[in-house]
């Protein structure tokens, strides 16, 4: 039988038992809806988590240090520090030239005295690279980010600002003075001198959260200035003394460089290249790997739960089609007497199963999408009440729509195997005798 006839007959048969087929189709729809709802939630949560983590800047960053500094660290016994070159300006340029690298910034931090309104505070000041402006914590800054990479501007930790003024917002736009130790080249290559300097900065923003960065996790800075400004200031840093006692002091070296990529996708390659340059490199990429694994497992569990309803629906299909076979015994006998082959009869029942699967699948995807919208809406009302920004926890990608419908048809056809075989096997003589 040609396909068009097959589906015409199938449609006719389904119309003749309209209520029963409609109910079974609704069962499939509910099953598909639950599957789509569960998987959309999984995909949505994953997207949400990815988005949050990417915004933190964590996965776009690789930390580079020279292995020379690790000579005494037991856990790096295999690092062969003697092979590692110095992390100097040449190395910095080389790393900057790697594909995908947006910015390479040194870790600059130093203890300094901050004068404001006649009072002074001793605190840690740190350089903040230009690329940090995309970070979530910086996006939420009160005020604004640095106007240029070389501006004489500061961002303050809100708690620190409170020390300066009980109303921290009032310090915005005002000027403070930083007193710091400046390193100056000495008369010979084996010496340098230190001099006290002062510099004025305009307070442009307040930070609620710590921006992400390497050592800042351990020793929290309170005052942030643009990294390039900090470099130009030649701040005396703890590593400077370490460098001095080394056998070949010479040119300036960095204890650590923070490499910022255009996207997390470059992190792995850059880390690889840096290691080939015999530097030590570290990124949080391994953490994403386990996160991705976690979401794969979560999606699987949500998928299994979602499929349960579809499994129940598939039993309803089996039931409906067996009923149809029993009810249409005589009709099947007539069709065989008129020349329908066993395969024709089988195909007819498969066509009915597939039709229910297709309609049920399409309805189910629509239903699942509506459920998703409703839950999203509910969540956002809650988030709004909690004064949090709206989030899209629910994503139905086109592939899931197509996949769910194909899956529903597949499950329905599988459910049709037994009834179809039973119909095909029916003895026409018995079926026609039966009355």
């Amino acid at each position, binding site marked *: 039988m040609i396909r068009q006839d097959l589906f015409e007959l199938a449609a006719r048969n389904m119309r003749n038992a309209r209520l029963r087929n409609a109910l079974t189709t609704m069962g499939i729809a509910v099953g598909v809806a639950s599957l789509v709802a569960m998987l959309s939630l999984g995909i949505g949560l994953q997207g949400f988590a990815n988005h949050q983590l990417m915004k933190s800047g964590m996965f776009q960053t690789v930390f580079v240090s020279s292995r020379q500094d690790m000579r005494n660290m037991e856990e790096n016994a295999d690092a062969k520090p003697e092979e590692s070159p110095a992390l100097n300006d040449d190395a910095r340029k080389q790393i900057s030239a790697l594909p995908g690298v947006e910015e390479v910034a040194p870790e600059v931090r130093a203890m300094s005295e901050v004068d404001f309104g006649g009072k002074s505070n001793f605190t840690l000041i740190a350089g903040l690279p230009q690329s940090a402006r995309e970070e979530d914590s910086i996006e939420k800054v009160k005020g604004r980010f640095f106007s240029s990479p070389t501006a004489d501007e500061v961002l303050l930790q809100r708690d620190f600002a409170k020390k300066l003024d009980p109303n921290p917002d009032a310090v915005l736009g005002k000027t403070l003075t930083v007193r710091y130790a400046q390193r100056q080249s000495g008369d010979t290559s084996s010496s340098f001198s230190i001099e006290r300097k002062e510099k004025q900065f305009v307070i442009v923003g307040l930070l609620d959260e710590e921006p992400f960065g390497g050592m800042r996790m351990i020793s929290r800075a309170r005052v942030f200035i643009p990294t390039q400004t900090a470099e130009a200031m030649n701040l005396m840093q703890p590593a400077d003394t370490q460098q001095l006692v080394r056998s070949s002091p010479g040119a300036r070296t960095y204890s650590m460089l923070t490499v910022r990529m255009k996207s997390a996708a470059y992190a792995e390659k850059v880390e690889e290249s840096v290691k080939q340059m015999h530097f030590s490199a570290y990124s949080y990429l391994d953490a994403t790997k386990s996160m991705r694994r976690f979401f794969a497992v979560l999606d699987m569990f949500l998928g299994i739960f979602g499929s349960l309803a579809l499994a129940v629906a598939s039993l309803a299909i089996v039931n409906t089609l067996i009923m149809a076979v029993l009810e249409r015994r005589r009709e099947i006998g*007539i*069709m*065989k*007497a*008129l020349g329908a*082959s*066993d395969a024709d009869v089988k195909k007819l029942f498969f066509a009915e199963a597939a039709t229910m699967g297709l309609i049920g699948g399409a309805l189910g995807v629509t239903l699942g999408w509506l459920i998703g919208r409703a839950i999203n809406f509910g969540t956002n009302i809650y988030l709004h009440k909690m004064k949090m920004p709206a989030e899209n926890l629910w994503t139905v990608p086109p592939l899931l729509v197509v996949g769910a419908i194909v899956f529903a048809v597949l499950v329905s056809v599988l459910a049709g195997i037994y009834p179809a075989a039973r119909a095909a096997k029916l003895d*026409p003589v018995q079926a026609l005798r039966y009355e």
Partner: protein
Amino acid sequence: MSEQTGAVAIEARAASRFYTMGEATVRAVEDVSFHINRGEFAALLGPSGSGKSTLLNLLAGLDRLTAGSIVVAGRDLSTMDSEALARYRRLTVGMIFQSFNLVPTMTLADNIELPLRFAETARAGRRDRVMELLTNVGLSHRAGHKPTELSGGEQQRAAIARALANNPSVLLADEPTGNLDSRNGQEVMTLLRDLNQKMGVTVLMVTHDPSLAERYARKSLHMADGRLVSTVEAAQ
């Protein structure tokens, strides 16, 4: 014998069909041999339970022989697989029944279209063919009716139209007038005779009414207890 083969439409050779029911064996058809010539109108007679329907189902390719062979239109049914038998039922034989066996949920036109669908006839000319078949049995005005809206005679005529859809060379009828009053029965018999005489369709009709056989059939096969007991050929 050999010069006869071309003229033979149906031939049974020691055909048997036994049913096993637990320990017991029901010999529904046993060692039946006969032949019917092309274009002949034959009747199969015998009391109820004598095996007439079983034999007809064997000839129709709906049932399978336990032993022996049946050759229809030169083709040996006993060697065919189920796909080939379905093809045979589709194209070579037409069947009508005492209880009409129209699909009750389909209109007459849809019923008659069924064998055309199974034969994969091109969809374009199909409706015209259906109307032609209905016109031939005088039912063109009933095309859109369901079987239950028609008289028994009309239903049987529709069933005949359906049986002829794919131009079979043999028509097998199992007590076609059994459920009809004499006037409707008369109409159906006239139609069968016309088909036989004008279109040359070979007809084998089961009946337990000897007078019907006498009036219409040239050859009468008599069965009893599954066996063929006599064959009577009317004088030319």
